[in-house]
């Protein structure tokens, strides 16, 4: 536990810039969900229980279109299937910590906490599982409560956010800031390119499944390029 506080603080510091994304995103969800006819308990239910902006927006969009309950659930869960991939990729790092800590970490597993933590784990491979856990918890610590508060503020204050501001673009900007530093090898670059091309090619698939197909192909590409590079170095 000796390193817990330091890595926790480092995590918090890494998580702070994401406040710029979490707050407008949560507030917009609160506004849109309220305008769609949900009461404040239901709006908060989404942000507290689901805690995944993209999936919440998909569910809301399909509810506005009066899609059947099962279709709403299937479409929104498909958007969150990537969380299972995050879970698998975190297992080698956090698998050793106790089951209840893994249970709590799973609750706060969002794109930002996942990507910022993976970036740090790759930079400092000497980190212990406890240090990695502390860092992950640190990144999530300022974001999760602010996600609730921003949603609540959006629902309570309503549409007083000036219309037309490009706040939807906060998400791509954060993701770019997280991805570019991860492109450290030819294998990473190849995987990212396949991901981009794949999502455009498979855009016709329903329920966002094109993203998952593209991601699977991209992971295979990255792994294969890495294997080929290793073979070439060995020969």
């Amino acid at each position, binding site marked *: 536990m000796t390193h817990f506080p330091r890595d926790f603080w480092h995590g918090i510091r890494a998580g702070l810039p994401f406040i710029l994304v979490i707050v407008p995103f949560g507030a917009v969800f609160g506004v849109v969900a309220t305008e769609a006819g949900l009461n404040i308990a239901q709006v908060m239910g989404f942000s507290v229980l689901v805690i995944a902006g993209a999936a919440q927006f998909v569910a809301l969009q399909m509810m506005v279109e009066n899609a059947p309950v099962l279709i709403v659930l299937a479409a929104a869960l498909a958007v969150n299937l990537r969380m299972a991939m995050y879970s698998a990729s975190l297992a080698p790092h956090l698998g050793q910590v106790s089951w209840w800590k893994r249970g709590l970490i799973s609750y706060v597993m969002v794109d930002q906490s996942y990507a910022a933590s993976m970036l740090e784990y790759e930079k400092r491979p000497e980190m212990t599982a406890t240090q990695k856990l502390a860092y992950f918890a640190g990144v999530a610590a300022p974001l999760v409560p602010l996600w609730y508060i921003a949603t609540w503020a959006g629902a309570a204050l309503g549409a007083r956010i000036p219309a037309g501001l490009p706040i939807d673009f906060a998400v791509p900007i954060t993701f770019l800031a997280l991805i570019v530093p991860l492109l450290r090898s030819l294998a990473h670059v190849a995987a*990212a390119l396949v991901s981009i091309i794949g999502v455009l090619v498979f855009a016709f698939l329903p329920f966002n499944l094109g993203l998952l197909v593209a991601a699977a192909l991209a992971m295979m590409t990255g792994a294969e390029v890495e294997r080929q590079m290793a073979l070439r170095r060995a020969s």
Partner: protein
Amino acid sequence: MSFTTAQIWTIIIGLGLGSYLLRLSFLGLIGGRDLPEWVLRHLRYTAVAIMPGMITPLILFPQATGGTLDPVRLGAALATIAVSVWTRNATLTIFAGAAVLFALHFTLS
């Protein structure tokens, strides 16, 4: 929307539970067991395999502009990539990207 209160809560709780189980899945099941090298090799590319694909449509076909290419958003994306390559600092990149986004928004539109 024409949902009953029970249907709305079914969606919220079902989506919450399903999302939690997806997040817990591998972390909960595999735990501390060692994974084979070929699996680890694939998992190393999870982040770069998903995130570029997630944002590509948001950059090229933003919903806010009805799905047409938008110079404000495209410009902000290119500036963000440039700052990220140059600084390799996520915090700085996010602030710079947001600054370019709003600068372009207020000058171009």
